[in-house]
């Protein structure tokens, strides 16, 4: 892996991805490029099937693109084997999924401690980090509870604490609020935003929850595998940093094209 000082923490350069469905090949992403900055909550929004989750899985190293290059924290991920990608994810990334995916046998504290145990940390470090993460998401007092004793919002906060305790530079969230009620959803949104701002973490979130748009630093609106709008809700104008080379039927970009 080559390492350079990153201006953007995540970069995709002309990536393409297609899936086979029987005899039909479905092109999800075609020569797609995007760059994401650290310390921001970047939201990828769009309708179901537009390719936003595929984009997330490729940028996070969960899936390989058919072609193109992906750089994360200045490291080239394209072409790396699964072992190397696992090591990269262990060291640098956190994930929050729509389903909370918590082991029903473990307490909230143990859920958070579990991945830390594979990072080579001491027992005391693991315990301290786990408690700190649970406190940060506001459920430190619920550490001894198992998933069956927690509400949906609390479970998602445990899932966020599990990701946060790793102190990742990259945090990926896939529809983190869609299974939650309005209050819990708002809490999760605020947490993700705070993690980006307070920890300098690159938070890339995929969602179609309109509440998230208001809280995101940057929004990438996707449709049919291309980004048709890139803007900052807090700004009056749009900002550079991404583009798609897909010219087939895409709506005009508001961001710059490289």
């Amino acid at each position, binding site marked *: 892996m080559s390492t350079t000082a990153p201006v953007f923490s995540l970069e995709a350069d002309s990536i393409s991805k297609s899936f086979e469905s029987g005899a039909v090949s479905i092109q999800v992403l075609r020569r797609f490029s995007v760059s994401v900055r650290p310390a921001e909550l970047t939201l990828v929004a769009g309708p*179901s099937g537009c390719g936003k*989750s*595929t984009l*997330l*899985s490729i940028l*996070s190293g*969960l*899936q390989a693109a058919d072609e193109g290059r992906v750089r994360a924290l200045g490291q080239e991920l394209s072409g790396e084997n*699964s*072992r190397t990608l*696992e*090591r*990269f*994810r*262990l*060291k640098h*990334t*956190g*994930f929050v*999924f*729509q*389903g909370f*995916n*918590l*082991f*029903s*046998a*473990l307490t909230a504290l*143990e859920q958070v*401690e*579990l*991945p830390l*145990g*594979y990072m080579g940390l001491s027992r005391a470090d693991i315990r301290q980090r786990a408690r700190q993460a649970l406190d940060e998401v506001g459920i430190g007092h619920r550490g001894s509870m*198992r998933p069956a004793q927690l509400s949906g919002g609390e479970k998602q906060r445990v899932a966020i604490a*599990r*990701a946060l305790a*790793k102190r990742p530079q990259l945090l990926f969230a*896939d*529809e983190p609020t869609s299974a939650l009620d309005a209050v819990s959803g708002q809490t999760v949104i605020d947490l993700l935003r705070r993690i980006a701002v307070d920890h300098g973490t690159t938070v890339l979130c*995929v969602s179609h929850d309109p509440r998230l748009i208001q809280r995101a630093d940057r929004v990438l609106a996707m449709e049919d595998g291309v980004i048709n709008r890139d803007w900052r809700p807090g700004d009056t104008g749009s900002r550079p940093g991404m583009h798609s080379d897909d010219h087939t039927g895409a709506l005009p970009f508001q961001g710059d094209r490289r």
Partner: protein
Amino acid sequence: MVALARKMLLREWRRFLPAILTVCFAAMLLLVQAALVQGIFGSAAVYVTASAGNLWAGYPGTQSVSLGHPIGGDVATLMAMDPEVDAVDPLLFVDGYWRAKHGGDVEVYVSGVDLQGHGLVFHKLLTPALRQRLMEPGAVIVDRSDLDQLGAQVGSYGRIDGYPVHIVAAIAGLRALGGVNMITSWNTATGLDHTAGYTTYWVARIRDSGKAAQVAQRLNHHSDFGPYSVWTSSAFARRSQLYWLLDTGAGVAVLFLAAIVLLSGVVIASQALMAVVAGSAREFATLNALGVGVRALRWVVLELAAWVGGLGLLLGGGLSAGLLWLAHHNDVPVAMSPAVAVVCALSVMLLAVISGIAAMRALLRADPALLLR
């Protein structure tokens, strides 16, 4: 490190119950089968194992105690002359047919013991009182579980090949393989046998039991005493058991059955484990997304399998012990040596580990990319 496998097992034991019970039943089948085989075929050597001798002299090439041929009385002199030998007793082994009162013949193996000798033969079964009762001409002792087969009771009279005998006692631990064992006096046995002046075996006790093999080897190097061979008691007992185990085909049948038990155990236990792992596939996938390697996740599955194997073995072992105790108290021939118990336990753990390896396939469903909608 959070002990994920152990905590899953403790909190979600119901999900693991089918796998644990499968291992438990496999352990029970193996252990009970092994105990029955050892018990049944161990009876082929009851003459040796219930006696106090260290050395047995018999006809060369004798495969089993019950298949002995006569050897000369000089062999006893040879054995007695060895400085290590402390005592020598004869055992006259006679085949015959018991004529039951209400018709039908039963094959009997009559062991004639020297009541005036050193009491080596059937030392563990014959109390002084029983030896006293054998003094009566025609007196025989049988296993209590064989009374029904003989159609007789203690006190019954009968005939063996026309020779009148009288059942004076019924004891435990004398059951035979394929017939009925009877203990009688040397004098009564010679009345049934026509090879006068010969005996079937000479049984010797030596001063230092640790030297049995050495003395047996030393006694085997004399060609002037007619055809004979000397074996240590353990070697002769093993020789007898193996003969019946292999000659009857039971050995192959036992191995075949054990293989079927293990194979079916692997299939069922692995399916049950796979269901558990597949049930937590999303959680495992999340761990993998967070960077926990597939290899580490496989270890968790293997650890789960080992716990399932250990618990199943514990449960199966306990139940088997209960069953074998019950069998023993109902005169069913069962026996268990530590070595065989260890082999059974290792086989069961191997079953669990193979099931765990097979269950790892369920981790294929734990692809983190599939968590993204």
